[in-house]
């Protein structure tokens, strides 16, 4: 704190606005970063952290606002411009070339060369010096990067940033892939960097890490800065969570009925997959909505896919109405009445260039087959009935799915499972990329399907969404269920506390 306040700000962002079609991702963000400090950026999913980083790295051009770098107003037209100014970003997915050596990665794009010939020895010298400076002289510069562990790759990324004389390094959830010892190493490196005057913008969901490494905290919510330059060590957790929660846009969540008492349809017991999640058990009754809340990487999507047979479980079983499902077989799951709306709609669920009706009828093609031949009239009639019930717009089922809005694309995926008459619906981020108006419709739809007796499992990064829709909520952390409660008995702050703060117990 003292370090930070005494220094001139290296970076100053004021009133940054960035709009995408239909959504204002940043709506007046302020950020001050001083040389030699670790500045933490906090906010829920969708608060605008990623967009802000991209603006900073020159990948997005802001629609309004000022950016001051080292005392002068600048605007970065391209990632290259930001790179030249000395801003380096280390993304969650490290952008290293796995087939090249450590040294080659460090100097990538800035290879020392003479007369057009690269000088591998020179590159190795540079890499070795930087790795020593980062406290990792044990990493061999000639080793292929793909063969290093995640932590080693992170160090190589840092070395690459330093090789360009970066004065500000943005680290986006660097600890997500590291174990606790590796996190300790990373922090040592970060402290070493800040001592030499480099500024670090550190993004993490783990409050305990922010306490350990951070100097000041800026909190984003719904694309705005809600608190600036809080002291990282002394701000109480409750205060941080209060700032992050509470929502500017209230979605119309349909009112909750009485707790469903139908028969148990889905029974998951002791389900596990090595390295992803373990010992997950829950049941879902007909008409019930069970929510899974947790951070990215907590195993939410993996659990859904495993229940569905898209991944093979290494332990445990899934039963539908008492009958065990064949593990690792999606066709068996679909026959048993399961349906999945996957997380990545475009890449995992849809044939974008094909018309709506072909997308909807995909899981039930054989129903429209008469000795293998498609009964086109029956297919069209059934699809029309399903899309009309979900109010897919435009109503013409021969339009390519690509031309529909995100909300209507999601409805197309839902219509698919309406058509199969599925009894268990697994929803992974059903409102991602869906605008506010269509969200309300999708919420109402989920409730209506449940009211018709469908057992629903809902995964979402949007905590209020899970709490508002689900009858019961399971809170996940690091692939384990850490808490279960009826949806009405939890609030957003409590859930965030469980998924974020709780990780301290295991790390310390």
């Amino acid at each position, binding site marked *: 704190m003292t370090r930070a306040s005494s220094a001139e700000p290296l970076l100053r962002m004021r009133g940054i606005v960035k709009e995408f079609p239909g959504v204002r991702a940043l709506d007046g963000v302020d950020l001050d970063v001083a040389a030699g400090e670790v500045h933490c950026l906090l906010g829920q999913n969708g608060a605008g952290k990623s967009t802000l980083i991209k603006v900073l790295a020159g990948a997005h051009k802001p629609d309004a606002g000022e950016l001051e770098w080292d005392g002068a107003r600048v605007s970065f037209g391209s990632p290259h411009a930001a790179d030249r100014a000395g801003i380096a970003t280390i993304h969650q997915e490290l952008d290293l070339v796995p087939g090249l050596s450590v040294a080659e990665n460090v100097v990538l794009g800035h290879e020392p060369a003479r007369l057009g010939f690269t000088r591998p020895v020179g590159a190795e010298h540079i890499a070795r010096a930087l790795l020593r400076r980062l406290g990792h002289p044990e990493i061999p510069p000639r080793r292929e990067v793909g063969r290093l562990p995640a932590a080693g790759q992170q160090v190589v990324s840092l070395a690459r940033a330093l090789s360009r004389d970066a004065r500000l390094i943005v680290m986006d959830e660097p600890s997500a892939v590291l174990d606790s010892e590796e996190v300790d190493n990373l922090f040592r490196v970060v402290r070493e960097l800040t001592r030499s005057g480099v500024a670090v913008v550190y993004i993490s969901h783990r409050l305990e890490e922010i306490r350990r490494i951070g100097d000041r905290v800026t909190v984003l919510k719904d694309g705005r800065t809600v608190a600036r330059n809080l002291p990282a060590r002394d701000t109480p957790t409750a205060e941080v969570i209060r700032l992050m929660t509470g929502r500017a846009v209230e979605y119309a969540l349909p009112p909750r009925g009485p707790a469903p008492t139908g028969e148990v349809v889905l029974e998951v017991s002791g389900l596990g997959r090595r390295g992803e999640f373990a010992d997950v058990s829950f049941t879902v009754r007909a008409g019930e909505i069970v929510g899974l809340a947790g951070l990215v990487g907590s195993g939410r999507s993996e659990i859904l896919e495993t229940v569905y047979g898209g991944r093979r479980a290494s332990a445990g079983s899934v039963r539908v109405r008492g009958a065990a499902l064949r593990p690792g077989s999606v066709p068996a799951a679909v026959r048993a009445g399961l349906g999945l709306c996957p997380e990545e709609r475009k890449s995992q669920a849809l044939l974008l*260039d*094909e018309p709506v009706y072909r997308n909807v009828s995909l899981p039930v093609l054989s129903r429209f087959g008469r000795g293998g031949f498609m009964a086109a009239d029956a297919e069209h009639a059934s699809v029309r009935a399903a899309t009309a019930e979900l109010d897919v717009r435009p109503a013409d089922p021969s339009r390519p799915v690509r031309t529909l809005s995100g909300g209507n694309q999601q409805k197309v995926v839902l219509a698919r499972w309406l058509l199969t008459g599925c009894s268990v619906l697994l929803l992974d981020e059903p409102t991602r990329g869906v605008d506010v108006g269509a969200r309300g419709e999708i919420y109402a739809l989920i409730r209506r399907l449940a009211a018709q007796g469908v057992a629903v499992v809902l995964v979402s990064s949007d905590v209020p969404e899970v709490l508002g829709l689900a009858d019961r909520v399971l809170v996940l952390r690091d692939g384990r269920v850490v808490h279960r409660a009826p949806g009405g008995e939890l609030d957003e702050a409590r859930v965030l506390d469980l998924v974020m703060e709780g990780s301290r117990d295991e790390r310390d």
Partner: protein
Amino acid sequence: MSVTDPERRLAAADGSTAAEPTGAEPTGAAPGRRRPDLARLMDSGVGRNLGLVAVLAVLCVIGVATADTFATTANLLIIMTSASIIGVLTVGVTMVIIGGGIDLSVGKVMALASVWSTTVATQSYGPVVMVICALAVGAGAGLVNGVLIAYGRIVPFIVTLAMLISAQGLAEQISGKRSQIVTDPGIAAIASTRWLGIPLLVYLFALVVALGWVLLNRTTFGRRTFAIGGNPEAARLAGLDVRRHTVLLYVVSGLCCGIAAVMITSLTTTGSSTHGTLYELDAIAAVIIGGTLLSGGRGTLIGSILGVLVFTTITNLFVLNNLASEVQNIAKGAIIVAAVLFQSRAQRTTP
């Protein structure tokens, strides 16, 4: 259902004001929007095929202008007959490519089937067994391809390349690198028989194309093929058995090789390991200029067949005009590039 009825009624109302008695109009076709309809047409398979028909027409005009014998019945039958064998192979290759794969092995699998079905031992069982043998060898090679790709998780390019090489080797080993003369008159009769003046081979070709078209466009099998080629992950998560379907696709392609083997054996009255050299490249080239996406999920069988006809007609033109085959290959290469350039432009202008 509730939406269908008012829309139908609306469409019917439109029809009656325009005084058109046809009630079977598709509901999506709105009158008075020529330009988008034209753009849509050009983007659809039909539009691209029209382009190929135009190319074919131009080639025919050139043919008539440069060679007196081009427009004779005899010459047109020569074109059709020589198109028929590659055409049958192309049917299988088209399906595999639409399903997201590639089959480099078709030419040599055909050679292997022709050799296996014409060994002295096989010939001793008579023509029916010879045909069954050819089909079984083709389908068997396709099955091996499919199983290695779907369950062995090896890239199709590598598996079918390996099949191409080893089928060649096996064909040479079985035949001792000698041409095996077919003694059975029944097999030879397939190529020499004519109905209404048209060789039986051309009918066979037409039959395979028709069956392939129905399979691709009117059956659940075809629908799954497009889905798996377009987005395999989405197809898998929608509950399709992607691996089994992939195996089936390669078996279909192998079966086409078997049929083509019978045809070439009959036409040349020999089974030989030298049959079908580089046919796989001709077939793939025809599929590409026919507008099928090499990455899968989009394409038409008719386009591929038009592609085959374009290539065969070019060959014929060069032969009739006594031009060197080197130039012919250069022209074919240029046509492939031109066709793909044209198609990617057309796609960009119509979003």
